[in-house]
């Protein structure tokens, strides 16, 4: 009797997981099918929605990514071209892109961006796999914004304006300002802390270190969670980052037990989930003081948009959306 109960429990678990997995897989593909079938409707709705998002940047940062991920792209930047939406089969895959065989038999090369960014999302692409690509084409190159897999998993690479989520700042403001390179962070400024996680939320982790408790901001929830590394209370982690005023900004988190890493910032301390704000445009005169669109539309959210010499002091992370 006990044996039968245990075996039944195991079977129910596996069957249940299979059904849930199937349901999870079907759900996003249904959503994307609907989006493909009704582009006109979405086109009419999105600008308004985007405007609303810009007013409430922090609360709706995820919504913007969702919009970029599940709706056809409405507008693009000059250098990335017009929106391009196709499905096809991957025939060749390299670190920076993939060759797709389209339904008409032709082949195109679709650029995915830096491997460190898209591979960190733990959405494995494979040759012979059918994918659905939302992106941009400028006649010569095709840049993917989202890549949807048959199992519902999705790579998110650019926002709805074509701005790469790994860099950002490709324009979209009113007046072009001159970009200034970001200051390099001195190697001496990087410090490492080790500790045990005493609490974890979607955006912060509290560590118990030898120097006492320490709270670490993780930034954009979807970005670090997409890297497939779970953080739990009791995990031993080490964090690498720099101090900015009294705030510790984390670039990399390593789980001591497993060696798994979460990458959050690049060596210039630029958030990987947001743009650097280069080319951000001030709304005033070029070179003058003014509010900026800090490389608008990254998924970053809240911070300083000090991109071009328009000195944009937005309410997003550096490179995130500045206020208009």
């Amino acid at each position, binding site marked *: 009797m006990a044996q039968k109960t245990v*075996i039944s*429990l*195991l*079977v129910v*678990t*596996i069957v249940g*997981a299979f059904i*849930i*997995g199937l*349901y*999870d*897989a079907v759900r996003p593909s249904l959503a994307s099918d609907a989006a493909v079938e009704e582009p006109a409707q979405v086109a009419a709705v999105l600008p308004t929605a985007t405007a609303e998002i810009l007013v409430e940047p922090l609360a709706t940062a995820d919504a913007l990514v969702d919009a970029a991920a599940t709706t056809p792209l409405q507008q693009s930047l000059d250098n990335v071209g017009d929106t391009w939406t196709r499905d096809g089969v991957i025939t060749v895959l390299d670190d920076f892109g993939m060759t797709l065989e389209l339904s008409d038999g032709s082949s195109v090369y679709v650029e995915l961006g830096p491997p460190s960014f898209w591979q960190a999302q*733990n*959405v*494995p692409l494979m040759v012979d796999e059918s994918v659905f690509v939302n992106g941009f084409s400028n006649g010569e190159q095709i840049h993917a914004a989202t890549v949807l897999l048959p*199992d519902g*998993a999705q790579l998110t690479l650019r926002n709805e304006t074509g701005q790469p989520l790994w860099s950002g700042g490709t324009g979209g403001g009113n007046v072009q300002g001159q970009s200034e390179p970001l200051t390099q962070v001195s190697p001496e400024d990087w*410090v*490492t*802390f*080790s*500790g*045990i996680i005493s609490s974890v939320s979607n955006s912060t982790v509290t560590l*118990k*270190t*030898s120097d006492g408790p320490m709270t670490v901001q993780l930034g954009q929830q979807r970005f670090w969670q997409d890297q*497939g590394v*779970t953080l*739990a209370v*009791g*995990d*031993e982690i*080490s964090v690498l980052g720099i101090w900015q005023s009294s705030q510790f900004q984390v670039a990399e988190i*390593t789980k*001591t*037990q*497993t*060696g*798994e*890493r979460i990458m959050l910032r690049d060596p210039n301390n630029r958030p990987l989930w947001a743009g650097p704000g280069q080319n951000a445009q001030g709304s005033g005169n070029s070179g003058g003081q003014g509010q900026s669109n800090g490389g608008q539309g990254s998924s970053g959210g809240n911070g300083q948009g000090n991109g071009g010499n328009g000195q944009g002091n937005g309410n997003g992370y550096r490179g995130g959306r500045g206020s208009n």
Partner: protein
Amino acid sequence: MTEQLDPRSEQITRRIRDSIERDDLPLSDDRSRMRYVMNNLVLHIHPSKVARPTLQFTYTWGLGGLAILLFTILVVSGVMLMFVYTPSPETAYNDMLALQTDVQFGQLVRNLHHWSGNLLVVVAFLHLLRVFFTGGFHPPREFNWVLGVLLLLLVVGANFTGYLLPWDQLAYWAVTVGSSLLTYIPLIGEGLSNLILGGPEVGAATLTNFYGLHIAIIPLAMMMLISFHIWRVRKDTLTIPRGADEPPADRVEKVTTIPHLVRIELVFALVMIALILLWASWVNAPLEAAANPDHSPNPAKAAWYFMGLQELLLHFHPFFAAIIIPGLGLTGLMMLPYLRFDQLTEGIWFRSSKGRRMALVGALTGLLVTPGLVILDEYFVDLPALLPSLPTLISNGWVPLAGLLLLLVIFYALTKRLFRATQDEARLSLFTLLVTAFIVLTIIGVAFRGEGMALMWPWEALA
């Protein structure tokens, strides 16, 4: 009045000798040999006579005796090391350096201690396997099996606490990783970890705690348990080895422990001491840079015997990898002798010739399927991504565990049916599969995981 002198020898040297050793040497007959065993402090752990078949070396491989020999080497070399070692973060690493450069034979003594400690973990594990595969845990020896499992845990504990003492990078981070597994125990995990580490992380208090455990508490506990274990072996008697499908003998020939058993033990001990000395003379115990709590090596690996668990952490939710799966394994190991077994298989390696084939099937399955599952999980299947609506505790914990358990149930039922095997033989095959899987996981963790714990070839991972 005449003097009445005691009956001792007239020679004072003879009287001194007799006060130390009461028996006449050399021993001339079986009676004196048996008496000598009973009267001798060391030899009286043996019965005065033993069954001749138990002397067959390929039955026990001398693993229990070797474990005691290694324990003795560890005690002696450990006491010698204590003369130069101070358990403090400021001095520990320098003591290690001094031991290697300033102290006569310091490096050799450290090498002996280090390699004997690691060998003891292996030997104790092999001893457990030997007892299982020859049915040595069948009634009335159930409780001695439990004592053996406890001793194995103490051996691992002794090694783990000693791991930290050199206070180098290897030690510091291996202990940091290993002890963090404790924190996954619900409710008490964090408190337990703080208690053992003397705080939230490895530091000066950890060193003194580990030192105390390593030199006093664990060795004392081991001495007590080893005595109990050996006493129970005497009381429960040894299993009598037999060939597969050979009926049990009605009468077993017995021979005196001296010289038959003692001679084998002595030769084996001398050969092993020579081999260990030779190894320790040529291969130095590792010592890396001094511990730096601010800089973890990449990858930070636990001690090698915990690498199976660390490998599990890469595939399961931590609660399952560090608590549920090891807990199930340990409980199963403890409860094993309390299942009902066929007494007639006792003393036969792998129970029968069919059992031998089934053990081979179990081992081969573990050898092939375990790396396959690791690669599958590493590159092809991402359960949390496939089941995003479930918490990772379920999607990456219970679901894969249920899948594995189901596979094990299928394997058990299939082998039992295909081989028309007894329950005993099917269990043996399953046990072999699980042990092989654990060994394979450990090897993958040690040799096939490199920077970022990514899978790679050993020459890349260990470079």
